[in-house]
């Protein structure tokens, strides 16, 4: 097991290098560069001056060097865990990520907990009452929710629930303007009140997938021999379902949790834009639109790294949850 993990960790290095090269190449190949995008197609500056200003700024950002040199400099810095400075913000990329990450994590953690808390019981109920009313209705409902674009739903929710006459929820942000003056509990209520709509938009589409996954696993197991044996032993229905079938069918559910790691980090551009929450998604989006290369590269590298770690964790989790899987045989 240990050798396997070490080997996988070593394999990550060339993979990460590959990711960075591809992201680097693509970001440089995209039309425009940070300076010309910031300057527009010339503005009202005369030609010679515009060219000088452009040259000065390119030099300042180190963009005047050949692309491969830039990549060399970048990779050298990253080896020392320094992602460089954002061109737009003039600040270390890592600081920007540190500022945004808690916001995205809060949103995503709550959403994932809700998705799991609702999907798993729903999946079990659907499987137990297969092809019965509840199963059918929940399938249709969840598929309908799944197919609604969150962009549209978010806009509708803001349009109908956030202003007069209803005024149920705040239309933007994560807390009220004067939230600092609140004591703890009103503050918490205020924060939760602000979180309702974005969290709803992040979760509603996620139920379908997980519910179906749990349902399929449960159905497989409910039909299995050991369940029949358990029933034959005279165990009660609930004990059979929860102690036997459910514990076995939860394996895929646990393992896909590992892939959530990068998703937690990524954030949702659409939701963050609609609800004016400035998290990782907006940071990455802004960086891409302004060609803020260092931020793009930083976010992509960290996301890539987390992806790889998540996949590794998924493999390890398989082995841990399911004794039938062992990595030793690879040796």
């Amino acid at each position, binding site marked *: 097991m240990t050798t396997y993990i070490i080997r996988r960790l070593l394999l990550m290095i060339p993979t990460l290098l590959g990711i960075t090269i591809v992201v680097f190449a693509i970001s440089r190949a995209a039309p425009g560069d940070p300076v010309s995008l910031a300057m527009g197609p010339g503005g009202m500056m*005369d030609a010679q001056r515009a060219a000088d200003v452009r040259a000065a700024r390119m030099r300042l950002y180190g963009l005047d060097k050949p692309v491969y040199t830039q990549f060399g400099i970048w990779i050298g810095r990253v080896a020392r865990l320094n992602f460089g400075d954002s061109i737009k913000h003039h*600040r270390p990329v890592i600081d920007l990520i540190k500022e945004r990450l808690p916001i995205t994590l809060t949103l995503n953690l709550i959403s994932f907990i809700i998705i799991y808390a609702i999907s798993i019981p729903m999946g079990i109920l659907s499987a137990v009452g297969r092809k019965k009313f509840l199963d059918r209705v929940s399938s249709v409902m969840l598929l309908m929710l799944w197919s609604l674009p969150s962009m549209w739903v978010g806009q509708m929710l803001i349009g109908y629930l956030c202003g007069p006459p209803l005024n149920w929820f705040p239309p933007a942000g994560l807390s009220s303007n004067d939230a600092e003056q609140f004591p703890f509990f009103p503050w918490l209520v205020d924060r939760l009140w602000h979180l309702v709509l974005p969290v709803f938009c992040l979760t509603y589409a996620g139920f379908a997938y997980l519910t179906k996954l749990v349902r399929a696993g449960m159905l497989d197991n409910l039909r299995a021999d050991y369940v029949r044996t358990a029933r034959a032993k005279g165990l009660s229905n609930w004990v059979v379902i929860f102690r036997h079938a459910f514990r076995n069918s939860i394996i895929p559910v646990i393992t896909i949790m590992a892939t959530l790691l990068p998703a937690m980090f990524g954030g949702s551009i659409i939701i963050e834009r609609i609800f004016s929450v400035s998290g990782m998604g907006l940071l990455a989006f802004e960086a891409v639109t302004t060609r803020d290369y260092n931020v793009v590269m930083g976010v992509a590298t960290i996301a890539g790294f987390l992806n790889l770690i998540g996949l590794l964790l998924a493999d390890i989790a398989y082995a841990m949850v399911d004794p039938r899987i062992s990595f030793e045989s690879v040796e």
Partner: protein
Amino acid sequence: MNGRSGLFKFFLFLFLFVIILLQFLSMVQSDRLYKRLNVLIGRLESAPSAPARRTEKPPADKSSIFQEYPGDEGDWLVRNLEGEPATLCDFLAISEWSSRWIVTGNIFEPMVEYEPDEFKFRGRLAEKFSISDDGLVIYFKLRDNIRFSDGHPVTTDDVIFTFNTITDPNIDAAAYANYFRDVDHYEKINDKEIKFYMKRVYFLSLGYLGGMTIYPEHIYKYKDAREFNERRSNPVGTGPYVFEKWDVGRQIVLRRNENYWGPKPKVKKIVFTFITNTTAELQALLSGQIDYMRPMPDQYAEKVNDENFKEDFHCLSYWDASNTGYFWIGWNEARPFFADRKVRLAMTHIIDREAILKHILRNPEAQIPAGHFYIYGKQCDPNIKPWPYDPEKAKQLLDEAGWVDHDGDGIRDKNGVPFRFKYMICADLALHEQIAKLVKDAAASAGIEVILDPYEWSVFAQKVKDREFDAVSMAWGGNVEEDPYQVWHSSQRQKGSNYVNFNNPQADALIEQARQTLDPDKRNALYHQFNRILHEEQPYTFIYTRPEQRFLAKRFNNVIIHKLGIDEREWYVPKELQKYK
């Protein structure tokens, strides 16, 4: 196990590839967002400082800046910005100028600014300012009683520090430093007086130098330029508000500077929020989360006639003289179609601009400009009226120019070339597309085929730079006073902003002469002549210029619309209506 691991790796790479592909797609897609910035950038590159106008004599110090503001003290103004600024230093070169300046304008002050009701300068930090008769020496004398918010007096050392910082090549302010390239050297006379010596005469120099906001040396002093570039927050200036805090992604809070040297504004705090979704922004206003916003044209057109809305909110529509500008369609004179003045004039006659204002802009106060300058400014010649909508005249002009439908296919042609041209637009703004469609229809009825050629922003900008278009529409930003050199001088045809290849020796001479004429009346007379040439030649069809629009909570009183815009410092909320404490 090996096979499985191979399959696993395959999926891993596939997954990564998809992620990268999505990244790329989002890069390309998101350029659309940039279209909006286009207009802003065009506007702002031209105007990082107030434009200059020669002052005959320094104004007396009894200027209106010492008048107390009326009304009760207290309450906050919660104002939404269109984006979160990246820094609170007002001259670092970062694209989102406008939202940053809305914040920093409360913290930092320039030496010289415009009178709110007159096209004339007044001193803010400067007690006296003047420009020598030969135009080469600019003199500033700072006021005696001015202090930074931390109590330090403002001296010429701070002016010199600010100037040196902006022009330091390692500071990321090249775009702004460009405005000070005419400065040869400066001379500190004493702690309050300074002279700048210029390399050449230029009518905007006083405004550029005077518009520089002053930074305290004892706080901003740096050894390594990186330090300065990275310092984005905790600004300290002389202004009526001081920085309180910045919750990243949520709000910037300024509180009133209780030690302010001038009359203090009545509103105690300004909170800037960053709601990016325009629907949410309006809902936030309606539910009282924000007090002040800039609506979309559609939102304004809808709410301005809504009596219920107007009971709770001011609908402000005003001409902001530091934010003028116009939308245009440029006809590339390097192309065979538009080399002839008659054809360009015909194009203008074909387009029903009144209809654009009425049905597309839905703004009854928008105007059709007849030239390059701010329509209510002194550079603009009020006697020049825009060409009327007259399709018959257009057809006649096209016939005269030799564009006649010889082969009877419904499209005019000349020397065997059909009149079919590409009209390039930026794909992202619905407004541009709507106008383009109207132009296409109008042209078709006159026997001209227009092919719409939309591109996303970065490609569009590149193509404009490379002059790869027959016709193009864009917007220029403007200011009370403009130097048309960059857009209209023939030297700017290759690489400057003269995209349409406008080449008129008479216009060149007028532009050059006007730049060096310090007397405003003489200079404006030259610009009026230039204006006439533009009108006759129609290198652009000038489509519209429009006022700024704002929604503001009704509890704010003393909201005055000045000739040059609005001044938030005059506002107050009566005690009984105050919302925040």
